[in-house]
């Protein structure tokens, strides 16, 4: 559905030939139809520029961008405008027209597409139901909450039955609860309408919750990409590890660790990493039954991704040294990651 080939974007920062910033650097990405694809990176990583090239709001300096069989990086004028009706976008700050009511805002892209008035009214009503805004049709954006505004944004984006939905930090201005409800809505329309969704974010939580695949961006480059669970299981790059930690490690892990190691000078504190099906196996029960050890659960967290769960668990083992080593071998044999914690 979307193919980015060797895409780069240079921004001039001054008059000299060397006064440029490479916002996007040689990016190759392939996004399949019906997929929810996440691009994660900190601000300045180039993800905003990248997503804007997908609907021609930015043009690449090099490389080609093909969306729904149209080479967005080459077409201009009326052709580009027509193509944009199939690639809609939602925004961090919603970007609604304050001078229009909810229904008039949703009607706007239909007016642009030249849909007749009767058709528009019908379509707007459908969309209002789809995003759950019944009863708020006549409200102005200033009378809505952030989550409701984003719902209007989504309804507006879906008005012309697009093939691709681009989400530019769509949940970053929302509180955690509202974020979840908007993410659920996105998953729902992805399933129901078979829409391809590309989203950029700096929150791993968003990737974990709804994405099938993820690309990690740093300094304009995609440093790692793959299925979400794969990336969670096996983060290769330092940047990816940091993002994965956002969701898998309980907060203040480091401080807690120091505290634990001081509190339990005897025995070992072990970090277990579970991925996929193994995350739900009764490992601890087996451990207690099969080994002469004291097992103490310290803390843990399991996160759900679209294709399975991922979790970390910290346990404290105490007993015979050999028994502990055998226990660790046993855990490894269960396809569970093991790391013995030491003082940092």
């Amino acid at each position: 559905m979307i193919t980015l080939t060797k895409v780069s974007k240079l921004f001039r920062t001054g008059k000299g030939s060397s006064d440029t910033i490479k916002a996007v650097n040689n990016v190759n990405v392939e996004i399949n139809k019906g997929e929810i694809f996440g691009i994660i990176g900190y601000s300045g990583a180039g993800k905003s520029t990248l997503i804007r090239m997908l609907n021609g709001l930015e043009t690449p300096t090099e490389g080609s961008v093909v969306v729904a069989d149209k080479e967005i990086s080459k077409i201009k004028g009326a052709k580009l405008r027509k193509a944009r009706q199939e690639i809609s976008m939602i925004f961090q700050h919603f970007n609604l027209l304050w001078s229009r009511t909810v229904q008039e805002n949703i009607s706007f892209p239909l007016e642009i597409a030249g849909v007749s008035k009767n058709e528009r009214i019908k379509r707007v009503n459908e969309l209002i139901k789809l995003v759950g805004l019944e009863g708020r049709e006549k409200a102005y954006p200033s009378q809505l909450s952030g989550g409701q505004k984003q719902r209007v944004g989504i309804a507006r984006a879906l008005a012309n039955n697009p093939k691709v939905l681009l989400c530019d930090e769509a949940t970053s201005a929302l509180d955690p609860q509202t974020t979840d409800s908007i993410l659920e809505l996105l998953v729902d329309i992805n399933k129901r309408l078979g829409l391809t969704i590309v989203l950029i974010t700096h929150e791993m939580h968003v990737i974990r919750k709804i994405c099938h695949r993820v690309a990690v961006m740093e300094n304009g480059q995609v440093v790692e990409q793959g299925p979400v669970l794969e990336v969670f299981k096996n983060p290769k790059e330092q940047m990816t590890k940091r993002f994965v930690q956002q969701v898998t490690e309980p907060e203040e892990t480091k401080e807690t660790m120091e505290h634990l190691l001081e509190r339990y000078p005897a025995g070992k504190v072990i970090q277990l990493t579970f991925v996929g099906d193994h995350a739900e196996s009764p490992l601890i029960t087996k451990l207690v039954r099969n080994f002469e050890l004291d097992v103490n659960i310290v803390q843990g967290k399991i996160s759900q991704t679209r294709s399975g769960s991922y979790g970390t668990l910290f346990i404290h083992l105490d007993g015979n040294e050999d028994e502990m080593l055998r226990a660790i071998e046993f855990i490894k044999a269960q396809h569970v990651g093991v790391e013995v914690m030491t003082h940092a």
Partner: protein
Amino acid sequence: MLEELLPNVYWEDIIEATKETLYMTSISVLATFFIGILLGLVLFLTGKGNMWENRVINSIMSAIVNIFRSIPFLILIVLLIPFTKLLVGSMIGENAALPALIIGAAPFYARMVEIGLREIDKGVIEAAKSMGAKTSTIIWKVLLPESMPALISGITVTSIALVGYTAMAGVIGAGGLGNLAYLDGYQRNHNDVTLVATIVILIIVFIIQIIGDVITSKLDKR
């Protein structure tokens, strides 16, 4: 009793002069509104980072607007006498004041329009583009409606300035309350006429301000 207090005031004259002032003001406000929006749009759209970005046109427009905004109105009328004669055929009467009024006020209003347009959230324009909107659609359905409160409050301020300009134009023969106050009030030393003319002008200004405020607050849904 009124006759004793205001011995030199002929109400027919006042009414006639008020009509002339209202005529000059309303025509020039209307013309200023449209010309100013047009100029303001060009200034905005040719500005940096906008749809018709063009440094040459923008600098030329900007210079013209600044020059006409800076010329004191009384001098502008005098400067425009040949142009007015060509256009209206005379330099006396209400119509003769119109070219100077419009040329004096439109650049002033154009700047206000430009400022109003610049205050529109860039994201909203980007959103319209991402939906495949043409520039004309963006102008009619985004730029003008989203800046309408600023455009209205701007034209309110400009209208009030124009009432003042009509009075100045009156001094050199354009008619209206300014003309009456100057010829009858000042030249013939009829202070009561000057007072009445002033009060009528104040009433006009207050009415314009109230209308402007009401419309602005009605339109503003932010």
